[in-house]
């Protein structure tokens, strides 16, 4: 009767709904997907470079007579463009000045605010919140930092520390509002943070036209930061790289510890993964939402500090550039892991630093960089697409999930 009774208790098969699996993959899929997403985006970017290149279109006129000419034109167009991008972002022996040769430091400089704001998005992500408001939080952070930096006279070191602290507080307030509203009223953080971005811009513009306007200036720009309020340059006056980068690395280490080692991070991750179970286990979900947005906002605020006390030195309403939105991509590409975010930010810093060199030296529109960045987002948001391109098996997580 029980003839098939030989099997001795293997672990029963895991059952998991398809939907939650896909979602989880987008949030925290393997680093492989990220790498492949970047690769595919670069390939498509390369096709666009080739298509728009005049030499390629010229040689394609006699494609059938001499296909080799077209192919070599394609190769030289793409390799020149990406070569220039790479050299501009790292080391370019052909540059005229020796400062210009070391693009790597520009990459790090550009990466600094991206690391900090990327961490902001990452941290909120892990607690289940989608912080779209890094932009506004950066602005507020820069404003608070600026007020201390150009309106107050303080001794060195202390002045800079005060600037950093003020920036963090500014960002924390802006992020905290969204967290508080989410916790108290259930207001969706995506909508609230988007709206707060607009409010931030208007608020900063208002301040710049009135209280914070540089004396004698007609433009909505603040005065210069005092020298004591600036991040010291790390490599002397020839490079923009400043101590903000050190701050960013410290932030990565702290956030990595916070998420993976601390009880607070355990709470955030539990809330993010299953708020109901977190609540049943005695965690205060609403308090978690508020505090994580405070910390997230503070990190974005530090990105604002990195801007105003590092590279920009004056406050204007455009000081956040597109950093707040790039931060979302960076966090996605970094798989919402602190060190992943760090390396993703380096990549985006490299795009920024190398993009100019590509435009100048290879005569390729800098918009290609924007296209590649957008494609990266697309491919990360659609992991099944990447998987089908590379025929990666989806079932791989079991056992390896440790």
């Amino acid at each position, binding site marked *: *009767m*029980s*003839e*098939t*009774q030989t*099997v001795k*208790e293997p*672990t*029963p*098969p*895991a*059952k*998991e709904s398809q939907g*939650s699996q896909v979602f*989880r993959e987008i949030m*925290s899929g393997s680093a492989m997907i990220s790498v492949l997403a970047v690769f595919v985006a670069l390939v498509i970017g390369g096709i666009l470079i080739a298509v728009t290149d005049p030499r390629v279109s010229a040689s394609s006129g006699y494609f059938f007579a001499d296909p080799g000419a077209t192919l070599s034109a394609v190769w030289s167009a793409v390799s020149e463009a990406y070569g220039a991008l790479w050299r501009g972002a790292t080391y370019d022996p052909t540059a005229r000045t020796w400062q210009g040769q070391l693009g790597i430091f520009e990459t790090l400089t550009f990466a600094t605010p991206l690391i900090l704001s990327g961490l902001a998005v990452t941290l909120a992500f892990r607690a289940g919140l989608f912080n779209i408001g890094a932009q506004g939080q950066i602005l507020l952070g820069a404003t608070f930092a600026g007020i201390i930096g150009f309106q107050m006279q303080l001794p060195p070191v202390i002045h800079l520390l005060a600037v950093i602290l003020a920036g963090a507080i500014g960002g924390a307030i802006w992020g905290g509002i969204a967290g508080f509203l989410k916790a108290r009223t259930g207001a969706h953080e995506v909508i609230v943070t988007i709206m707060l971005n607009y409010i931030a811009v208007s608020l900063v513009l208002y301040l710049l036209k009135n209280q914070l306007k540089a004396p004698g200036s007609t433009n909505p720009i603040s005065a210069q930061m005092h020298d004591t309020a600036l991040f010291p340059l790390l490599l002397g006056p020839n490079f923009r790289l400043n101590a903000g980068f050190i701050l960013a690395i410290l932030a990565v280490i702290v956030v990595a*510890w916070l998420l993976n*080692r*601390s*009880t*607070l991070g*355990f*709470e955030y*991750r*539990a809330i993010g*993964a*299953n708020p*109901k*179970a*977190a*609540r*049943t*286990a*005695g*965690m*205060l979900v609403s308090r978690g939402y508020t505090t994580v947005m405070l910390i997230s906002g503070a990190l974005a605020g530090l990105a604002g500090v990195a801007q105003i006390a590092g590279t920009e030195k004056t406050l204007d309403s455009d000081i956040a550039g597109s950093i707040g939105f790039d931060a979302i991509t960076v966090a996605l590409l970094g798989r919402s892991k602190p060190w992943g975010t760090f390396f993703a930010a380096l990549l985006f810093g490299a795009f920024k630093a190398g993009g100019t060199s590509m435009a100048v030296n290879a005569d390729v529109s800098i918009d290609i960089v924007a296209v590649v960045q957008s494609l990266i987002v697309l491919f990360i948001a659609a992991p099944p697409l990447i998987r089908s391109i590379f025929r990666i098996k989806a*079932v791989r*997580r*079991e*056992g390896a*999930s*440790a």
Partner: protein
Amino acid sequence: MKLELRGITKSFGALVANDHIDLVVESGEIHSLLGENGAGKSTLMNVLYGLYEPTAGEILIDDKPVMFAGPADAMAAGIGMVHQHFMLVPVFTVAENVALGGETTGFGGILNLDDTRRKIREISARFGFDVDPDALVDELPVGVQQRVEIIKALVRNAKILILDEPTAVLTPQETDELMDIMGQLKSNGTSIVFISHKLREVKAVSDTITVIRRGKVVGSADPGAATTELASMMVGRAVSLTLDKADAEPGEVTFKVSNLTVMNDAGQRLLNDISFSVADGEILAIAGVQGNGQTELTEAVLGLHKHIQGSIMLDGRELVGRSVRQVLDAGVGFVPEDRQDDGLVGEFSIAENLVLDLYTQEPYSRWGSMNRAVIAKNAKEKVAEFDVRTQSSQDAADTLSGGNQQKVVLARELSRPLKLFIASQPTRGVDVGSIEFLHKRIVAERDGGTPVIIVSTELDEVLELGDRIAVLYAGRLMGIVPGKSSRELLGLMMAGLPADEAQAQLDAPAAGSSGAGDVAPAGDTEGERS
């Protein structure tokens, strides 16, 4: 109509859910598919119903091979299915639901339901269903909704009816009625495939029993076979179904609920003036059909509800108004009713889940920093102690089977000194082998002197574990009866009769066995049947 499945194999990737299953359902027989959760019963039926395409094998009806591309084909071939979770549109009437998918329309596309209404009345009359075609499905009790599902199949001339775990949502009386209906359908020539893991029901109703384990047919059994024999076939090893449980030695009463009323945000009373107490070293089992206030009761104790009146005293301390953290710290161990939703964080490792509500305490963490080594060591010990079947305690919790997940939750909640232990549906969706283990642990906790509350909708479990049994109906306590009360008594109480009235009805000489229907209980429970 004779149905035959030959060598049906269905695999999802590497997972083989059905492995060369052969099954013959003769015309006019009730054929039970017995197996644990996850054994592959539902997959097999979904293959039969055209929802899944089999990887290999064939389906024969009256010895002719058939191919189903979808449920429509299966229905056309005379197969009807009543799913565990009803496929009804709640805001439609019975007739509209029955017509859905096969509507007849008149001039200008206007629905014509007269024909459907007539058919429903006809079938109702023939089987004594007592279903009004124009009633809103939403307003019907669960038992009647199930009949609507059966009517849906019969209207489409189903000759083979698949009932997937049909008794999971019914009171014992409703279950008995369903079995009567199955008998009538059978005598009418309809074949029935009855899917269940409840041995008692399977034995009572079947002509043939096929046992499935891990996707394979492990054999067939006679309905007269002993329960233990069926259970061991189902699990694959010998199991003891009766719990070795000494009589309770109740000590001091340390947990006391008085006049507890719980309301939802709209001010509706979900629990109405409940009072009871539990002594140290005693198990109070709370019975009732799902959704009669059990969830609210346990959540109220844990501090998850806002609108509470009354008092919940543990060891002389008031629990009402405290946060969940404070309640847990007061010594309450809590196993929530839905382990995947409330008990575990699926993507966390087993080790992390084992400290989900202990992580703030030493030695698991100190100064806000988690101690991974201690947590891993704790996991190793708990996995061994509770026999959690896993390759590594670092695996994600959602890679575990239901029974093993439940062991993780139980291990966590029992791993600290408790003053009260509450478990909701401690063995729902858990295989028989694990049930035995979980029950033993619960009784061990009782024997250690902890007051224990078990909430369960499974009467077997209530009877097995309860030293006393409380029955909830529509948010009210129908009474507390001794642990060895009869199923009939509990059934009546679960249908809304207070304990004394239920007892009186059972004692009355005329009432006898068909007593359930004579007193239509207040509220909306289905009781009447002619």
